[in-house]
């Protein structure tokens, strides 16, 4: 238990609690960002530089932005969002409990709840790159294909629709309604 672990672990817990408990959805999103930062700090504290920095670059730099923008654009009115309906909450609780049991079980089976005796050595960025380009080149390429497909799909969705009176297009000569 280093002080750094306490600090970053505290950030993770406080952020996650805030994301659940705060009333304003944008506040919840920003609170989740605190969790992301805490996680990144934990990775850095453990010596996984690349993972920690990639966490910040991807989650704080991109995912969080996406999150708050979606909330902003789908809000129905001013002020706070309507109360979440009770009734389905135990489903969520069940899923959360199952995930927690699965994670703890996996951790226990790996470490056996004993601190490691020998010091850990962490792969450098170079090791990661070599591993990605040799042993794991097929998964890497597959991920690339999936991402490319997603990007093409997004571009097609964003294309203006041409002619043929499709949905969302006003007939020729009429002004689009404001």
């Amino acid at each position, binding site marked *: 238990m280093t002080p750094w672990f306490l600090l970053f672990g505290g950030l993770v817990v406080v952020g996650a609690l805030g994301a659940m408990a705060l009333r304003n959805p944008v506040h919840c999103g920003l609170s989740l960002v605190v969790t992301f930062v805490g996680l990144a700090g934990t990775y850095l504290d453990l010596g996984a530089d690349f993972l920690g920095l990639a966490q910040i670059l991807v989650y704080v*730099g*991109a995912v969080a*932005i996406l999150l708050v923008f979606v909330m902003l654009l789908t809000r129905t009115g001013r002020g706070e969002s309507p109360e979440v309906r009770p009734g389905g909450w135990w489903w969520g609780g069940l899923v959360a409990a199952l995930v927690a049991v699965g994670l703890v079980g996996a951790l226990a089976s790996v470490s056996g709840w004993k601190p490691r005796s020998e010091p850990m050595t962490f792969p450098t960025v170079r090791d990661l790159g070599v591993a990605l380009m040799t042993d794991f080149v097929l998964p890497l390429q597959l991920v690339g294909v999936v991402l490319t497909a997603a990007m093409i799909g997004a571009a097609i969705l964003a294309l203006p629709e041409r002619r043929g009176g499709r949905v969302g297009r006003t007939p020729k000569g009429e002004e689009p309604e404001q």
Partner: protein
Amino acid sequence: MAANVDQIFVHLMQMMVDRVPDAVAPWVRAAVGVGAVLGLFGLLFGLTTVCERKGIARMQNRLGPNRVGPFGFLQFAADGIKSLTKEDVVPRSADRVVHYLAPLALLTPVVLTFLVLPFGRNMVLMHVDTGLLFFFAAGASTELAVFMAGWSSRNKYSLLGAMRAIAQMISYELPFILSTVGVVMIAGTLSTVGIVESQAARPGEWLARWNLFTPWGLAAFLLFLIAAFAEANRSPFDLPEGESEIVAGYFIEYSGFKFALFFMAEYLGMFASSGMAVTLFLGGWTAPVAALDWIPSWLWFFGKLLALIALFIWVRGTTPRLRMDQLMDFAWKFMLPLALLILPVVAVWHYLGGGWRGWLFCTPVLAAAYVLLGRALVGRRRIQRRVYRYAGEGVAS
């Protein structure tokens, strides 16, 4: 002698650390280093604002600030005192906590980026293997702060400004990062110090191996610089602040010192991007030719940095603002394909071993891509001199 001058700051730091007990030595080292960087770049920020105002005033046939201090060069101190003594106005409907945190969340990551910049030989605050990634990770977290500022003000102009800024920053972040990948491929490391050292002249060579001196390096440098203009929200990409349309963008509802913090974050971000451009493409603290190695390394770094800042000011004074759709088109249709093309070109350059064969292959490919892409995007539109109905009619100018 020359070596001593070169390492003078390193020796000073060592002397200071030697005088304190070992237990606190790392803390003293960190505090002194961070303090020096903050003070130096804070002062540079002040002086840059004055030089920028005076420089642009020259370009616009005005005088600029000329009242405070010799030739008006103490204007920044007057501005700082003014912003400290102004009332800090928070709109009644604003989200107080987020409104308060936004300038801090913007300035902190920007200051963090200075940790990995090598200012001279053995002069880097944080020597890590993943320096370049650290720089981009810290830079990417500023977008959220811009959102916080724009959203929490509860003002349509500020929200519009924030949306513009975020769209722009995310779009230009792609060419910003991709244009540096070529450098990483050649240097074989993400460490900023390693990248600088890979650009130094080898023993016996008269010319340094700056990445700028290669065809792909030149192209990547230009892309990086343009993207840096956009990331810093500076002219010609200063739409998020568009005074004439949305008054000041995302920080319209900030006053007093919080406003100054936004201003400071913008300039420090510009310095950090310039410093990274120097590190990646202009050889960091290395001399361009081996014969000039006797000039201290930190002078080289700051000389190059100041030259780039002057370029930023020059561009701001001479280019008109883009339109939003032009801005997006330029990032996605022109800069991104070129940045992607640079990657295979760098790979070919590496396997050809540089030299004249590399030049013979890389230059035509990049030039052809630039010309063809530009032609295709312009399309059938004819570019010609705009004729103004009143101003230019019948007047031979």
